[in-house]
């Protein structure tokens, strides 16, 4: 175990995989100077500018060329800088990377990792703050990862690099500096296996990415009110760990999903719909969601905070749930 930041964990994962497999390479703007959040720092010194490759401001080409490079036998790690900018390369991701294997009758796979730093990062405003993870869960062919801890950012990134599927890999900008214990060596975290962040009896709270920590803090507050919340970190949204969620809800009878992204059309809806259908009888109260209102993200902090789901809101919702 080593204590390191979420950014360092990602860096460690990439470096380990690049050492292991010469076909792994990374490409994106400003990688040669360490990347915009420092998450590639020092890598060019070890691996050289061909494998830690700068790119022109050409998101379509970064994504599209990586599709071709993946088909032709390499394993690109694509840096999109902000998840928002990946919207400049959606054809390449959704029409090409996700579908090529299927359309071409299984003649190829498209092993690539698309790193999309996501989420609110104080006052980045509407074009630098989005969380669009639910979009990609809707696209056959794509895997979606949403690590919330340094350990998972190592283990999931390594697994993503080794996967033969295109993996949309959302790191949260607010977590770069978060420190935590990270297992040394070949940590490969499986996709579709949730992590129980905290055990509990009265209510299940499902979350992921940065919001998981808000949920966890809310659970701490609930404990003081003698409400025992089980907090589940999904880690990946496609596949997502139904078994873990179902097992927990069967125990608690109550489910709240909370995420940073917009509630309408968010992945919370998918979970709520699935659980409401399959555990209809086990539910003691309706499945609830707490997520962002359907408004763009503002620059001014008080307005931005309107979009954030707070610990207090989670507590409030859980109180409603347990008393209903």
């Amino acid at each position: 175990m080593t204590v390191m930041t979420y950014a360092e964990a990602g860096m460690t994962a990439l470096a380990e995989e690049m050492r292991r497999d010469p076909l792994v390479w990374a490409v994106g703007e400003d990688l040669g100077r360490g990347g915009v959040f420092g998450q590639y720092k020092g890598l060019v010194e070890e691996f050289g500018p061909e494998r830690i490759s700068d790119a022109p401001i050409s998101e379509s080409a970064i994504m599209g060329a990586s599709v071709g490079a993946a088909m032709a036998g390499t394993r690109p790690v694509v840096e999109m800088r902000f998840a928002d900018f990946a919207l400049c390369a959606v054809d390449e991701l959704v029409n090409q990377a996700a579908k090529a294997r299927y359309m071409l009758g299984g003649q190829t796979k498209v092993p690539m990792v698309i790193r999309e730093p996501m989420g609110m990062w104080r006052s980045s405003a509407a074009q630098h703050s989005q969380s669009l993870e639910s979009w990609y869960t809707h696209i056959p062919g794509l895997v979606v990862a949403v690590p919330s801890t340094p350990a998972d950012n190592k283990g999931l990134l390594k697994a993503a690099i080794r996967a033969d599927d295109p993996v949309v890999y959302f790191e949260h900008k607010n977590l770069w500096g978060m420190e935590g214990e990270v297992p040394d060596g070949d940590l490969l975290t499986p996709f579709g296996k949730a992590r129980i962040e905290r055990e509990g009896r009265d209510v299940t709270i499902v979350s992921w990415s940065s919001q998981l920590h808000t949920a966890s803090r809310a659970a701490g507050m609930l404990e003081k009110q003698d409400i025992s919340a089980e907090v589940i970190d999904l880690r990946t949204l496609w596949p997502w760990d139904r078994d873990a969620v179902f097992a927990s809800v069967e125990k608690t009878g109550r489910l709240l999903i909370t995420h940073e992204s917009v509630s309408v059309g968010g992945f919370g809806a998918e979970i709520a719909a699935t659980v409401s259908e399959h555990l209809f009888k086990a539910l003691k109260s309706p499945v609830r969601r707490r997520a962002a209102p359907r408004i763009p993200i503002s620059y001014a902090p008080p307005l931005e905070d309107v979009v954030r789901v707070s610990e207090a809101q989670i507590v409030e919702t859980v109180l409603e749930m347990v008393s209903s």
Partner: protein
Amino acid sequence: MPGATPRNIDVARYLDHHRMMHRIRAFEEAAAKANEDQLVLGAIHLSIGQEAIASGVCKNLRTDDYLLSTHRGHGHTLAKGADATAMMSELLGREGGICQGKGGSMHIADFGVGMLGANGVVAANINIAAGAAHAIKLKGDDGVACSIFGDGAINRGPFLEGLNWAGVFKLPALFVCESNGFASTTRTEAMTSGEGAAARARALGVPADEVDGNDIVAVDETVRAAVDVIRGGGGPRFIVCKTYRLHGHTASDPAAYRPRAEVDAAWKNDPIARCAAVLREAGIDAAELAAHRDAAATEMNQAYETAKTAPWPDLALAYTDVQDIGDPRERAF
């Protein structure tokens, strides 16, 4: 008949071209017939009149070189070495289809011969080819990645991004623009500002040639020279092949938006007839050339017959090759 080209040709090579061009023509005619018979399922785009480009480009590529094509990709795919019956079966969506019936005409591919896919999105293949070239370079191989696209594609952003990419990284990439005058029902010149594809390529640092795309000799020689440079580490090259789309945009498009006389005149410039003329001048017998045509027709009619009688693909295929991770059969409703 236009097109005086040097007559000092490698006869065997141009016999190959002639054979291939007839195979492409015959494939497209069989596909058109299948389309009339309503056995082709989706839209298909015929490359009749553009065969010299497919043949001229692909003869200069090795099997392990990569090719990325467009919606109008049958000719490219055949010329790269794919099997006609497997292709025709794909058009009919049958078992034995080259993509198992899952892709159809616009997604034809044959990785076994380096053909990494047609594409339903105009210009999308440009970046993919640049990336395939990038992989070649990273691996230290001596291959070439080639993208063929239309004159309409030069108005999409990926044209700029892909060419700049290939230039910046000095990649072994060949870009070929089939300038057939049309993008669907629209004359490309009406929607293109400036001097066109070659000027744009040059401005992006990719040296460009322009050739008569209906002259197999010109295409072959220009491509050969470009591929030599590319394989020698000289970076990307661009070739504009001027041609004319003799049929409609799709096999079902009567193309009524252009004057009959224009089309008639273009037929006089048929690249196959021009290739035949070159070979006749080099002393080849008319009968031998006619035999190419007949053999091609026989092959492609047979391909059609085989495809026609093939069953639908196995239903289980619907759920295969989606992705490794996560079970697509998982009930999601």
